[in-house]
């Protein structure tokens, strides 16, 4: 039996409306799209207010008066919509950018750069012959792919060494193929959730 729950009906109709874009752009899709943008922005405001209260106001009300500064900075963010006071927006954004960059690059050099080099600088020969072959493929893949991204030393891309970055490009293309294959799975796995909803919760045939 088809569901009698109005919430399920709205969900089902919006699911179909949002899918209709794959055939062509149409008015039903546009309604779904504008609804999505509107509700997302509304949800952001609700969560934003809750966070401001829980992580800011509580401290301020608890006697940490220094938090007045954060509230002023927060309000200054909205100066970006003013032609005259636009520059005020730069103070809070400078704070956020400084924090955001500092917090990520301090670790990136360790996690992305050094750990990966250290892993590559490990023994190639293992006890099992298959492991040795795998180690060599990983080593070659890493070295050649990295060499592909050297731009200011032309010698690496020409002459006898020229095949090294070329192998790197091939290795990367094969890796991208794997990524492509996995993405097919991601998208189908995602849409399958909608099919399951339509058949199980809405039409109730499963």
């Amino acid at each position, binding site marked *: 039996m088809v569901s009698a729950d109005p919430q399920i009906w709205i969900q089902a109709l919006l699911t179909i409306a949002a899918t209709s874009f794959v055939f062509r*752009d149409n008015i039903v899709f546009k309604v779904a799209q504008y609804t999505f943008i509107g509700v997302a922005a509304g949800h952001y405001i609700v969560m934003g207010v809750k966070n401001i209260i829980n992580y800011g106001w509580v401290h301020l009300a608890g006697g940490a008066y220094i938090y007045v500064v954060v509230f002023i900075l927060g309000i200054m963010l909205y100066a970006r919509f003013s032609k005259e006071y636009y520059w005020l927006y730069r103070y809070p954004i400078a704070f956020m950018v400084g924090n955001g960059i500092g917090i990520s690059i301090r670790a990136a050099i*360790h996690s992305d750069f*050094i750990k990966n*080099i250290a892993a590559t600088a*490990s023994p190639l020969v293992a006890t099992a012959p298959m492991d040795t072959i795998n180690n060599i493929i990983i080593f070659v893949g890493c*070295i050649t792919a990295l060499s592909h991204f*050297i731009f*200011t030393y032309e010698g690496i891309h020409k002459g006898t060494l020229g095949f090294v970055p070329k192998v790197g490009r091939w290795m990367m293309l094969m890796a991208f193929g794997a990524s492509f294959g996995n*993405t097919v799975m991601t998208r189908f796995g995602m849409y399958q959730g909608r099919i399951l909803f339509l058949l199980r919760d809405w039409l109730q045939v499963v």
Partner: protein
Amino acid sequence: MAILTPGRLTPLVAFVLAWFATYYAIQLGKQGKIRIRRLPGLDAIEEVVGRAVEMGRPIFDIIGQGSFTDGYATQTIAGLSILSYVATLCARLGAKLYAPQADTGVMPVAIELVRDAYRGEGKLEELDVEEQLPYLSSEQFAWAGGIIGMAARLRPAANIMIGPFWAESMMFAETFDRIGAMQVGGTARMYQIPFFAALCDYVLIGEEMFAAGAYVSGDPQQIGSIASQDWYKIAALILSIVGALLATAGVTVISDLLLM
């Protein structure tokens, strides 16, 4: 009490050296002492523009929907450098360029660059900004839908999309293929590179787009930062190769040193 957090000596040294390297490389770039190799991707762009001229059909150049204030600003800037290059080629060879826009902050810069390019070739009167660089929407799917509609109507001979791209990359690649356009793609957003690699005729992989952008713009800052990254990559190559050989021989000095 130790001043340094244990186990972080090597990262700290690498980090501090990166400051000096970046600063020094930019100085070298300003003095014109660094040369970037010309990437095959740029030849591919020239080829598709030439093909469009032969066929008498227009060219699309999409720079993505990034802005100057988000985390992908460097990609947008690289995309703009390429746009300027494409506009110069189009003006010189006589192909009609379309570059639909998605960000109100980036759009005036894009218009200025394209105007300069046409002016430089003495073809300013051939450019109609309103028609050729229209603002479509800042919303992802509205923007993508707009471009798909334009592509179906104008049937371009080629599509160049270099910049930050999200889920819309798949839609574009498929649409432009359907109308028979050749495609050159490039992005440094790792999750989208595989689509461009699979679906475009030529792809600029990751940082190649920064190098291509720096090459065509000649901006010493961009060139300098590419050089400093190159020094680190070369160091990484040497450490990896020597380290692997030594470790295979039983000497693990390099990985020990790195994990200090």
